[in-house]
């Protein structure tokens, strides 16, 4: 090993160390800054209590529920849609449809979230208000539609990647035994790509939980337990954006770092799950 090589390795290694320190330091910051709360409240109090700062209650359960509800619901909407789109792209549609659809889906990954929110404020909120006659129109449903639309393109592309990784011999065998494209897709491709599909879903879940702007602009931000999709609710992310304004010494301020921790843990669990599934999928197909 030459001196130059050792030097290069050292410099690159140092940079990698810096980069790898970032996810850790984010977590450490969250924990340290949330600490004032832990001295007067137990973790269960914080995670299962209601949010009434004037009465000294800093529970984030309503926000957690709203976040999970919104993310799971938008996943439930986006999953079949993405599966269908990925199916079309995989070959259920003629190339004249497939190629433009693929391009469009790729471009859609670049749509700014704030633009989704913006269009939602002026199109969706009045529509929901007039259609359901329930509240101001700022509710979980109004956030659900653009959020599911936002995660669909990435999910579709993940699914397409997973389908493309299905070994060719399996496809040929299916065709040879007389399966038509739809049968092949449903009975062969989807089952063999299931780990890839799961990984894509988990990551999209992380993305839906982590989105701030759509919920902040469209969900209404009432800090209480959501009891339906037509009610104004506040997600964890919107909560952080709203409460950041509080006194830096206050417990309210500390509580947004608890929200940050919960979000961090949720999304990193999603990332870890997806990584394991992906590793398993690679072993399976390789």
């Amino acid at each position, binding site marked *: 090993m*030459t001196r130059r090589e050792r030097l*290069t*390795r050292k410099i*690159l290694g140092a*940079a*990698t160390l810096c*980069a*790898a320190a*970032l*996810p850790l*330091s*984010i977590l450490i*910051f*969250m924990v340290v*800054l949330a600490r004032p709360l832990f001295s007067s409240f137990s973790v269960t109090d914080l995670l299962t209590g209601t949010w009434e700062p004037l009465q000294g209650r800093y529970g984030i359960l309503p926000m957690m529920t709203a976040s999970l509800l919104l993310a799971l619901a938008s996943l439930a909407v986006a999953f*079949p849609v993405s599966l*269908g*789109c990925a*199916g*079309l792209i995989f070959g259920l549609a003629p190339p004249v449809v497939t190629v433009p*659809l693929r*391009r*469009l889906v*790729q*471009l*859609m*990954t*670049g*749509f*700014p*979230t*704030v*633009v989704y*929110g*913006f*269009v939602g404020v002026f199109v969706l909120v009045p529509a929901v208000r007039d259609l359901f006659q329930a509240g101001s129109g700022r509710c979980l449903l109004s956030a659900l539609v653009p959020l599911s*639309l936002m995660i*669909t393109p*990435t999910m579709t592309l*993940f699914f*397409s*990647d997973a389908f493309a990784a299905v070994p060719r011999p399996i496809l040929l065998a299916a065709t040879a035994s007389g399966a038509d494209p*739809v049968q092949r*897709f449903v009975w062969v491709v989807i089952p063999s790509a299931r780990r890839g599909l799961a990984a894509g879903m988990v990551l999209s879940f992380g*993305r839906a*939980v*982590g*989105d*701030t*702007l759509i919920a902040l*602009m469209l969900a209404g931000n009432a800090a209480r337990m959501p009891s339906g999709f037509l009610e104004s609710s506040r997600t964890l992310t919107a909560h952080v954006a709203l409460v*950041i304004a509080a006194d830096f010494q206050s417990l309210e301020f500390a509580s*947004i*770092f608890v929200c940050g921790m919960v*979000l*961090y843990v949720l*999304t*990193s669990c999603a990332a*870890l799950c*997806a990584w394991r599934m992906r590793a398993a999928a690679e072993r399976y197909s390789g």
Partner: protein
Amino acid sequence: MKRGCWERAVRCGCYAAGFWVVSGAVAVVGFAVRQGAPHVTPKLLFGGVSAREALFGGAPVFDGLWPAVVGTFYLVAGAVALAAPLGLATGIYLAEFSRGRLKEVLTVFFDVLAGVPSVVVGLFGFSVSLLLHKMVSPRLGPCLLVAAFSLMILVLPYVIRATQSALEGVPQEVRITALSLGADPVQNLAWVLIPHSFRGIASGLLLAVGRCAEDTAVILLTGVVVTAGVPRSLLDPFEALPFYIYYVSTQYASPEELERGFGAALILLGVSVSLFAVAYAVRRAVGHWALYRA
């Protein structure tokens, strides 16, 4: 007969899904274009001031998007200037110098980082700026530099993954040619591997630019303000396009302000979509894993 029915239903379902996505995209783009296009004029950018005076005369612009556009530009430039060296170095290290357990652990680390929601990254940036404020100088606070640093964290995983996957995709025969001709590994890296994977790296950087220009949650917590003018210092608060859109959508004070908001939405949509289009065109087969970002 029954089987044919069932298959047709699946196919129809797929087409319905495709139709839903296309109509969603058309709704978003159509709305932005219909409402925004009539207002995309020099007046949208510069308000009452003439373009020449604003660009070269240093005249402050009040009723236009110009300060927000410049703010976003600086923000993107700063974030990418920070993310590019760090991300490239890390990507190269992961692809060329690490293997086995270490590589696996590092990959997981960056997967976790890629999944951290942008509002949490913003919160981190905000606490760092408070720390600087208390420890270093009371003049420091949320500002352009802090926002660029936070955005750097946001887009770093993009750059790392794009670099790593581009390098790992270099074919074996290319990889060993220079080595067999007597080049050392560093020369091989600098003159063969990196040029060969240039397109992949470039697409990663373009996506990073797109995400920086688009993200709102991070800057919301790290120093964006309603009125600041064209930024003059890295330590000042700043204006930015995505924040302007957010601000206008919830609290426009006049029809003119709302029109500017529509114009801003169209501009931002156009900019990020073209960045993504170029990124995909630069490297068609870029794995979508590399593009994932919460």
